[in-house]
């Protein structure tokens, strides 16, 4: 590996990116190993010990039904992350191919697909999810599917714009001239060149999915009791907010922490891909550098 490449990789690991990556890793590990870390069943009701506040046994305290908040955060996190991933997965499975076809073929295919996107975009995103849930019933699966579909147009439009840039490049022409099929060119030649930009967007989208899912669960349209995610926990806790703030503050902070970390990480990757966005040294430091050289 030559020096400039090493330098480039090094430039990716700035302070905020490292911190956000560690935070994300911890959150993911905590939700994967929730079953091992949690000391209590997250749904175990203990009427004799409600709203206990932080103690040695329950270090984030218990909620209004005497359930251990820490255990619920762990399992709720698993639920939240899985659902957010589900939303992204659905939007990728539909949105990326739609974007590719639309961008690559143009013409009528493009026009039709983009008109459909426009119709979906005519709804404020969560409102469409509400309508969807009203059609197919409440529950986390339906909420995930609904949001997944709501996220499709944005992703499709992004993919489309990337493909439209790529398809005019020389390598596509070369692939055509040696007789590769359209499908091969679209998915094996063009797509890999769009992946990095798409991944950045998806990192950010996971954050938005977490927020939107939390909103739905908060309104009781997402996850159904006794199962819980961070959004539903917020709703459960807010009635007792003045007595036991942790019951809703803890999941609230987890949401903020996760989404902030995702945003910082996504911005870091973006800056890595686009050196224009990289931060310059401060003027003071710069003056010193120039002074040293002269």
């Amino acid at each position: 590996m030559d020096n400039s490449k090493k330098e480039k990789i090094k430039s990716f690991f700035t302070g905020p990116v490292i911190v956000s990556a560690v935070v994300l890793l911890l959150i993911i590990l905590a939700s994967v190993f929730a079953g091992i870390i949690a000391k209590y069943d997250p749904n175990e009701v203990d009427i004799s010990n409600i709203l206990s506040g932080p103690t040695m046994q329950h270090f984030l305290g218990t909620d209004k039904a005497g359930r251990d908040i820490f255990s619920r955060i762990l399992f709720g996190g698993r639920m939240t992350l899985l659902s957010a991933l589900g939303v992204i997965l659905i939007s990728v499975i539909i949105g990326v191919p739609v974007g590719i076809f639309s961008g690559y073929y143009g013409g009528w295919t493009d026009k039709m697909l983009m008109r459909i996107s426009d119709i979906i975009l005519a709804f404020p995103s969560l409102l469409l999810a509400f309508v969807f849930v009203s059609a197919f019933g409440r529950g986390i699966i339906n909420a995930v599917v609904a949001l997944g579909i709501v996220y499709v147009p944005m992703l499709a439009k992004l993919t489309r714009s990337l493909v439209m840039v790529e398809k005019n490049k020389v390598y596509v022409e070369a692939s055509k001239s040696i007789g590769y099929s359209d499908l091969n060119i679209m998915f094996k030649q063009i797509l890999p060149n769009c992946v990095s930009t798409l991944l950045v967007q998806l990192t950010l989208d996971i954050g938005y999915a977490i927020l939107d899912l939390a909103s739905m669960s908060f309104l009781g349209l997402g996850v159904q009791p006794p199962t819980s995610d961070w959004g539903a926990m917020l709703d459960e806790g807010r009635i007792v907010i003045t007595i036991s703030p942790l019951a809703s503050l803890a999941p609230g902070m987890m949401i903020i922490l996760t989404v902030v970390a995702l945003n910082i990480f996504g911005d870091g990757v973006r800056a890595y891909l686009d050196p224009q966005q990289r931060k310059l040294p401060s003027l003071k430091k710069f003056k010193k550098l120039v002074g040293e050289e002269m």
Partner: protein
Amino acid sequence: MKKYVVDKLAQYVIVLAIVSVIIFVMVRLNPTDPVSVIVGGKQTTAETVANIRAEFNLDKTYFEQYLIWIKGIFQGDFGTSFQYRQNVTSLIMKRLPVTVGLVLLSSVIALVLSVPLGIITALKQNTPLDTGLSVIQLILVACPPFLTSILMILLITIFTPGVSFTGSFTNFNEYMQRILYPSIALAFSMIALTSRVTKTSMIEQLNSNYTLVAKSKGLSMRQRVLNHCLKNSLIPVITIFGTQMGVLIVGTVLVENVFSLAGLGSILIDGVKSCDYPIVQGIVMLLVFVFITISMLLDMLYAVIDPRIRAKSGK
């Protein structure tokens, strides 16, 4: 310009029509029998069921029902709610002040704060002020409005106990008091996003060639920003403002829930949960209508600002 306006208006009408069909169909996909919602679990005879079906037009074909619904909307009649057995229009009218107040107040707060904030951070790039504000922005983007609301309630009850700011209201003063805090909560995430977009777009304009030319003409920083960059940088800001209006409209549903205000949100969510079609389709249609109308007006604004858009469709 004329053609642009006509094009956009035609699009607007078509989208509204398609959206109304989608809402109508989606709401009816639910397998729950409306009659059971209307009678609310009581024992009924076949005769009352037949009466109810006739009363709510459920005996007609879906196509006829759709036409009745649309015709009603044009006359200001959204049908009758299943569970309340009340006119949906009057239910909406009673709750409209809260929702409209929230949307208006929060969008005004957001707009007034976010554009100047974006400009300042763009001008103060890479200073501690910029870094500090960016951190706050980042947190606000990650903080859903209902969480902001909960935190606000917590803080208000801790620091100023006894102040009433939730529940019903009887006069205008109380009304403003009720909607002020939720509006601020709603405005926060919009401020975060919009100011961020303003900042990037302002930086782009500040680095543009025409700004350099303006500098070479002897214009001061202030003149360059206000006379040259501001107008150019607003185009992407209008776009994000449009999509954020949608988020804000739905956001009212969330914050009014936290602040226990009687707005459209609570009956909408109730309606969704209990399959009250007339309410769901009526309120969703109303909210979508408002959103699309705002988007259409913003499209017009583009043309007012940018002569190239006026010209492109003028020929």
